[in-house]
């Protein structure tokens, strides 16, 4: 569909910056306009890449959680953490029609990753091997979502 969503957003931002911003004299209003332009540019990137980023991330993190779960199985003291991971992994696979939104699934997975990272005993398990698996996943996640934030948010926001 043309114009595309990014094209429309880009036109809105250009119009705000070229035709509206020069006439704003109040500094707080000007600041709000700069924030709006920055967020619109981010939304344009989201419309192009967010779905793919979330889908790839959900697949990746599920595999990571399954790997961690297998590492925890031999340790009775982690039964509560194991049950939490099993409960979420028992849900539908990413992309299934009954799986809920990809954002919701991703939020559930991220909550588990955070819980595992904050678990003091899991952090040192197998000389930190489980912790490294989670940390490596987070680095892949950062790389995956990089294009949604750079360079949009690198300019001063105020």
């Amino acid at each position, binding site marked *: 569909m043309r114009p595309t969503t990014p094209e429309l957003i880009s036109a809105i931002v250009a119009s705000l910056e070229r035709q509206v911003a020069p006439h704003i004299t109040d500094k707080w209003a000007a600041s709000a306009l700069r924030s709006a332009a920055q967020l619109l540019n981010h939304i344009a990137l989201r419309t192009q890449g967010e779905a793919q980023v979330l889908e790839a991330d959900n697949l990746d993190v599920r595999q990571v959680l399954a790997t961690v779960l297998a590492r925890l199985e031999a340790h009775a003291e982690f039964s509560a953490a194991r049950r939490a991971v099993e409960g979420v992994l028992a849900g539908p696979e990413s992309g299934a029609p009954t799986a809920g939104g990809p954002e919701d699934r991703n939020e559930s997975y991220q909550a588990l990753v955070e819980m595992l990272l904050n678990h003091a005993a899991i952090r040192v398990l197998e000389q930190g091997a489980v912790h490294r698996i989670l940390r490596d996943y*987070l680095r892949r996640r950062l790389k995956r979502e990089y294009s949604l*934030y750079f360079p949009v948010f690198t300019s001063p926001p*105020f």
Partner: protein
Amino acid sequence: MSLCKGQNGIGEEIWRDDKIVAFSDWELANIGDPCQDLALSQGMLKLWDRGKIIAHYERAAGFSLPAENIAFYLVWNAFKSMLVLNNGLRCFLSGQYRGLARATLGYGKVKIYEHLLGAILDMDLEEAAEFIVQGQPNPYHNKKVSGG
């Protein structure tokens, strides 16, 4: 140890002609390592040659600043800023206050810090500090600055 301002927010310099003659907003002032103040100066170190700025500070203060301390505070400040700014997103997410700056700072800027901090995990301290400095926008870049 010295009197530290704690953080120099944007626009907290009081200018007379082309010189800074005072600073406002001292609510975070503390007694601490003076390297902290240089690291927390929010872009001022990028307005001129960084080495010359530090040398000028050392001449004026009468003592030297260990490079590793400045590096430590540059990295520490990135981590601290990420946490502080992200905390500001709470009221945006709860709907209590949907000011746009809450999103650009509490979400967008925090993402930039996340990426910077994620990238420095295997770097040594000074390399990490340089990476943080280069990766952050200079908030003064679109301000008209005379002198220097």
